[in-house]
């Protein structure tokens, strides 16, 4: 008889121990799809805007996919970006979605964004989701939230945050133009501009932009091949 239905640090369904230990040899690393990536999250009063580029690459030296959606809905009012290893990030998203659904089914209410960030940090810290650095953006009763979740499980909230290989370029744009009290439209344009700057100079980022708009009403994700449509 189990005293606890769950390990506090592990996904409830499927344990870390059961997952294959996929230790890669040095030269295999070159064949792992990485997002390279620039992902931007901005929290404003009316919601959260997340912008991501569309390139997957092998070590930033070869473009392995030009049409990647790197932001996914994981909660009725939250989305997560894929940054780092594509496999790790996809598995991370599947796991968090199942946790969010179980939580809601059992308790009759959605998990708060803060609790979801804590849970995601626990998984990133203890689990097999190696080499990921996603942004979690969501809206709940407490307001709009943006978190970065680092590969060691560090969870940091901010008004705006950037992760991925184009991080410094995107931050340069945000530091110059971010101000408090932006509207959703203004934040969308700013986030797209930040990603655009990164795609111009970072070899791991490029090929267009996905925008996720997260509000009380839900998550709306749209892809744009051409930056002119959003700038």
């Amino acid at each position, binding site marked *: 008889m189990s005293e606890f*239905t*769950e390990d506090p640090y592990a996904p409830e369904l499927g344990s870390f121990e059961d997952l294959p230990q996929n230790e890669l040899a040095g030269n295999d690393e070159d064949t792992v799809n990485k997002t390279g990536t620039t992902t931007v999250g901005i929290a404003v009063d009316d919601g959260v805007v997340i912008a991501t580029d569309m390139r997957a690459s092998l070590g930033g030296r070869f473009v392995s996919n030009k049409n990647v959606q790197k932001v996914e809905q994981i909660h009725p009012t939250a989305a997560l970006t894929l940054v780092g290893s594509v496999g790790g990030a996809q598995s991370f998203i599947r796991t968090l979605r199942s946790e969010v659904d179980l939580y809601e089914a059992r308790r009759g209410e959605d*998990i708060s964004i803060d*609790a979801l960030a804590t849970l995601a940090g626990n998984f990133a810290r203890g689990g097999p989701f190696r080499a990921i650095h996603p942004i979690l953006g969501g809206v709940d009763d407490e307001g709009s939230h943006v978190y970065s979740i680092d590969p060691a499980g560090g969870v940091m909230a901010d008004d705006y945050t950037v992760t991925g290989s184009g991080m410094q370029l995107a931050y340069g744009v945000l530091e110059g133009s971010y101000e408090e009290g932006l509207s959703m439209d203004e934040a969308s344009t700013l986030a797209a501009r930040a990603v655009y700057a990164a795609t111009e100079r970072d070899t791991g980022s490029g090929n267009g932009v996905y925008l996720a708009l997260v509000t009380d009403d839900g998550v709306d994700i749209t892809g744009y091949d051409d930056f002119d449509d959003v700038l």
Partner: protein
Amino acid sequence: MQGQNQQQAYDRGITIFSPDGRLYQVEYAREAVKRGTASVGVRTADGVVLAADRHARSPLLERDSIEKIHKADDHVGIASAGHVADARKLIDLARRQAQVEQLRYGQQIGVESLTKEVTDYIQEYTQTGGARPFGVALLVGGIEDGEPRLFETDPSGTPYEWQAVAIGGDREEIQSFLEEEYTPEMDLESGVELALEALGSVSDDGLDASGVDIATVDVESEQFTSLTEDDVAERVDEFDLEGEDDE
């Protein structure tokens, strides 16, 4: 041995239904709860009150060692009726589960979630060979999202939510009293009074302050607070619940 007794053996194994669909061991566990002294829970507009009869069988017994009301987490208290040893096991489960919620989600556990963790655990003991059910009922009271909540667990592992409820000895009588006197609008202090009166309603010699344990969790502080014996004595006196003849 096997052949003859087979017919009456439905109450021997916990996992065996009787032909009319009853689990006798679970029903016997409910009897064990009735043999315990009563505990009362009252949900008021601004908090939850837990009260327990803990009269001692000997004046030499240290009262504080009779454990009937426990703090599960800052914002949740648990009162028991029945086997104290069984209760302790469940209360420790509740305490740890409250911390699991902090570790996993970084938040306080809800009273409903906590109750269901406990009842799911109790249920396993009604379906597992070689085990016996828990001979205890619990009242789980606390604050969740700013609202007072009060739940009961029973030996079958079924959770119930209540406005006011009694468990343990004289349950029916105390419950009738609560049904007569309870109003949802009452404040915390009135809730304490009602809980004391309810416990006193089944005692011929009135209430002895040292034989009653009371704790509250109010909406404002969201903190479990145990009343001292002096506090209880003051209220027993104020509400005129003392017996005519002193023992």
